[in-house]
């Protein structure tokens, strides 16, 4: 399925599959809180879209889906390599932020 939901699913599932390890890698409570907040946002965007229509023909949604696709590829690489946790959280933040915009577009469409 080449829809917005597929990209939001990728963001959310990438975090879900490694959430235990990512949380363990956090050295400070601040990092843990940031990571948890991003996870919650990714899960929320995913479930909002499960409940809504997927307007593939909306150009804004298509553009954001492509952008999220790129961000997801970077996120997957960052999570697999699990380097400096702050840069991993930055990647997560980027993907989740695009995901939130995409979810908002889908819901509004």
């Amino acid at each position: 399925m080449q829809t917005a939901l597929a990209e939001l699913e990728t963001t959310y599932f990438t975090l879900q599959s490694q959430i235990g390890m990512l949380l363990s890698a956090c050295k400070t409570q601040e990092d843990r809180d940031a990571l948890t907040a991003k996870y919650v946002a990714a899960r929320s965007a995913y479930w909002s879209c499960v409940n809504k229509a997927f307007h593939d023909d909306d150009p804004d949604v298509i553009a954001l889906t492509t952008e999220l696709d790129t961000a997801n590829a970077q996120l997957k690489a960052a999570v697999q390599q699990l380097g400096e946790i702050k840069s991993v959280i930055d990647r997560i933040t980027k993907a989740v932020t695009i995901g939130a915009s995409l979810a908002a577009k889908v819901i509004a469409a």
Partner: protein
Amino acid sequence: MTNSHPATPKFLRRAVAAGVLLSCLFLAGGCKTSDDATAAASQLAATAKTLTNYYSALDTILGQTDQLNAVQVVLYGIPYDAPIKAEIADTRAEIQKRAAIAKGLTELAQNFAKLTGSTASTDASASAGKLETEVESLKLTKGKMSSDEQALMKAAVDLVVKAIQERKEREAAQGISKFAKALAGFFTKEAPDYESIARDYSAISSSLAKSLLQNGQTDPSGFFKVALDPYGLEPQITDPKLKNGIEMLAEQQVDLKAKALDEAHKNASDDMEKCLKQMADRIDLVANDKPMEVRTVPVTLANVEKWAEPFITKSLSSASSRSAPKAPAKTK
């Protein structure tokens, strides 16, 4: 998922009219096709019953997803707030509505198949009225894609009711055919959503299972039972090195099982889609007075049932007494 119908004149009129609903299938092409119509009605009933089970299994999966999210609060400290809980509950309610439609169609087709009895027409009319209400209850949350199919289903039920009021049997049978086609299209368009819901369940459950394994919070000794069972011995693993080794094996098994769960649901979803399309084609033959020679239900129905059964068993066992013994896991 239950629906009550006030005895309004409109409902009664429709109920009486719909009383001969499935007789249309029998009468549409004259006596020579009545065997085909009976077979088609029975096959439609079996297919709709499997569709009900498919949706009931998805409902169980969503219920367990809700519980898994609650477990994550304890394990990871990830909040599971009311809005997200409501999103999942709302999705679950929508799946339950689809299960109600499939159940309504099952009852209607069953009553059609036994219309020779004097009370069967009353049953069929009640089933038709119920189905109409259930189709109307669907929210338009799926946007234009699914709402098109919903509109088609609603129009088809309206057509059936009107055609019976006017004693136009062939049109009524064609209405049922249209309903079956629209239902198949509805399923096809929503199938990616169903698959995503099932993947979410396996993603969270496998993630939690692996976390518990990695933190030494499981007893992996069961892996040794294959070697010890034949000799009546019980595992008692104390060597940490051995425990670590078996935990790695268990993690691999969790990954494999999660993948297998996703694949099993994808296959069940594809098979259900095929069955619905096959049934729509068969009903179309009967509605257009063409011979329908197939006398068996679509072969892939059994695959869908096999996938759904463990989830339905799980749902039933959790609904029954807590002291009841747990049903053994089904194996393929």
